[in-house]
């Protein structure tokens, strides 16, 4: 397979808070190839947004990328090496802050933000904001950038774009603002767009329109996407490959059909069962039991074990990595669950865990790796 557009290897991002270290992203690896839509799925708090911002090196204090490697088209967005004194330090070939700002953010990788209501600046016109980003990232002059902005607003389905160009964000509905955010990303002509739950704040009809729009535009421009969502329905609709995140880790990774029809991780199964589908009544929906623990103090062993219906004693002890458990047409299907034979840690012989009363914070303890 060709060199991927983006490769993320064992990325770790942590927040150093007064309460302790929050391991928001804890060693995730995935790839994005040219023209692909890759899903990043998980419940609220799984670390999806932190992972997205890490890719642009825009983690906010007190957060910091503490390990791993991010490579974009052969360039190192993030990478560490061991210095002569044994301390980890940033690699020389890592892009500087200026290079990230001038060459990567916006022009190579653009983000569609999660919150359409807060993401636009209230005191500038919609068109002005769009124009500024176009000028900056495509090096166009003011007039050209203005024309391009109007064109882009039209493209994302905003009626009377030439007039609405001069309006302020508060004059736009939530769906319209989301379209503006999408227009911003597309207008900069990046090769990769990270869409952080761009449809969550919208109602279903608008969501449908926007997904269709993205599909069309993706076909037209061939842009790659990382599509962040907690909605399996959206994943099924637009993604080519999917990464399922749980508590800072990717616990299953597969092409979309395999994920849905040959699910390998109990958490993914639970997510799918909790998803409304036409062939199921509301009573048949099974919400995932319990809530996701805090990333500040994750459960020992498999982080999903307090909520997993298949959990056995061994799951409390062994922390499974995201291993290849199957292959479909040469594409690996990875899952982090000791049920699978590749782990060979004695799952079959282990005793099932009693249905514990639900704990929200996991038992403290080391992880074996």
């Amino acid at each position, binding site marked *: 397979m060709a060199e991927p557009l983006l490769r993320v290897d064992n990325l770790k991002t942590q927040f150093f808070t007064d309460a302790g270290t929050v391991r928001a992203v804890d060693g995730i690896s995935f790839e994005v190839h040219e023209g692909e839509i890759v899903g990043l799925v998980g419940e609220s708090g799984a670390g999806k947004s932190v992972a997205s911002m890490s890719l642009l090196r*825009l983690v906010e204090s007190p957060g910091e990328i503490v390990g791993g490697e991010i490579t974009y088209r052969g360039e190192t967005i993030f990478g560490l090496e061991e210095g002569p004194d044994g301390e980890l330090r940033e690699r020389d070939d890592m892009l500087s802050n200026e290079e990230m700002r001038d060459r990567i*953010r916006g022009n190579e990788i653009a983000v569609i*933000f999660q919150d359409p209501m807060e*993401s636009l*600046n209230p005191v500038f016109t919609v068109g002005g904001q769009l124009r*500024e980003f176009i000028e900056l*990232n495509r090096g166009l002059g003011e007039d050209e950038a203005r024309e391009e902005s109007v064109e882009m607003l039209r493209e994302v389905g905003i009626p009377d774009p030439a007039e609405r160009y001069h309006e302020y964000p*508060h004059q736009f509905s939530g769906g319209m603002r989301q379209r503006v955010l999408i227009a911003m990303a597309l207008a900069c002509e990046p090769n990769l767009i990270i869409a952080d739950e761009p449809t969550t704040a919208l109602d279903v009809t608008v969501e449908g329109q926007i997904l269709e729009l993205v599909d069309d535009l993706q076909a037209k421009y061939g842009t790659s996407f990382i599509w962040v969502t907690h909605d399996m329905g959206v994943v099924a609709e637009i993604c080519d490959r999917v990464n399922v995140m749980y508590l800072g880790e990717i616990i299953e990774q597969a092409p979309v059909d395999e994920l849905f029809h040959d699910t390998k991780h109990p958490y993914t199964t639970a997510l799918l069962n909790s998803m409304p589908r036409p062939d199921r009544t509301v009573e048949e929906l099974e919400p995932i039991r319990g809530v996701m623990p805090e990333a500040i103090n994750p459960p020992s062993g498999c982080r999903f074990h307090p909520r997993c219906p298949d959990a056995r004693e061994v799951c409390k002890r062994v922390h499974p990595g995201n291993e290849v458990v199957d292959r479909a047409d040469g594409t690996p299907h990875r899952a982090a669950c000791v049920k699978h034979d590749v782990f060979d840690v004695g799952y079959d012989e282990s005793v099932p865990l009693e249905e514990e009363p639900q704990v929200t914070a996991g038992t403290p303890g080391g992880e074996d790796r």
Partner: protein
Amino acid sequence: MGLLRYTIVRLIQAIPVLIGITVITFILANVAPGDPVRLMLQGQEVDQELIDRIERQYGLDRPLHERYVAYMTNLLQGDLGYSIHRDRPVTELIIQRSGPTLMLVLSAYAFALATAIPLGILAATRRNEPADHVSRIVALVGVSTPSFWIGIMLILIFAIQLGVLPSSGLVYPWWGPEHYGYSGYVELLFQTIRHLLLPMIALGTLQMATLMRVERTQMIESLQGEYVKLARAYGVPERTILRKHAFQVAQLPIITIVGLNLSTALGGAVLIEYVFNINGLGRLLLEAIIGLDYQLIMGITVVIGTMFVVGVIITDISYAYVDPRVTYGDRD
């Protein structure tokens, strides 16, 4: 033309407020203890007939509401009455004395804004670093020190100890260089600033301190806004984010505070004019109060009240101008 209509609506809304000001000052001035005629005659033994005659002459024998209507009729013609003590029309006195007060208050605001905004931004971007701590102390001292005391200290240090700046009076540029015997406009400007410096700082420090803290808080909040994250994600340089994206949003509350503090500033001006011997409205008011010069007290109160109302309207309008989210009643 939403903004123009908004301006007109705001001006119309100010009319009842201004009428209210005149009613209240009128009643207060007329029910206050002390008989103006006897006070004017300064304890001379006179017969009742003379007193009645004087009262008739000034219309003091008529019922209150008639006197109010007469007062308002004159006021609308620009006649604020007659100062018995000074033997001059009130309007003339006020016009003469407004210049210094306006000059003082406006320069104090200019000083406050010119220092508070950069210092507030500095404190916001260097949060919990030495610059922030210093600004916090300056603000605390500024808020808790009375302006007249600051004035006295400034006089002690710069006028008496160092002898570099004058301690009293102002130079009014509109009187021209010849009036002061200056060589030309350059010297006139120089002297104007030299005289204005201490009272301006004394009056402006409180405003500076409040505005600086507000600026800091607003900038911190604004810098954490999603729109700032968005700008960063699109490669906007940090300098532009600070100067444009975060700054514009953070200025909105500053405008409001400036308007609200206008009353404190006008009140402070009374004391500062006293400390620095400035012949402004504030001193005129103090002297009028001490002398129970009713017509003058009322005239000044009405004028200061009007200045305040106009100030608040200007604030509202500039807010509407800067913040597009302000709706002007209905939109067209």
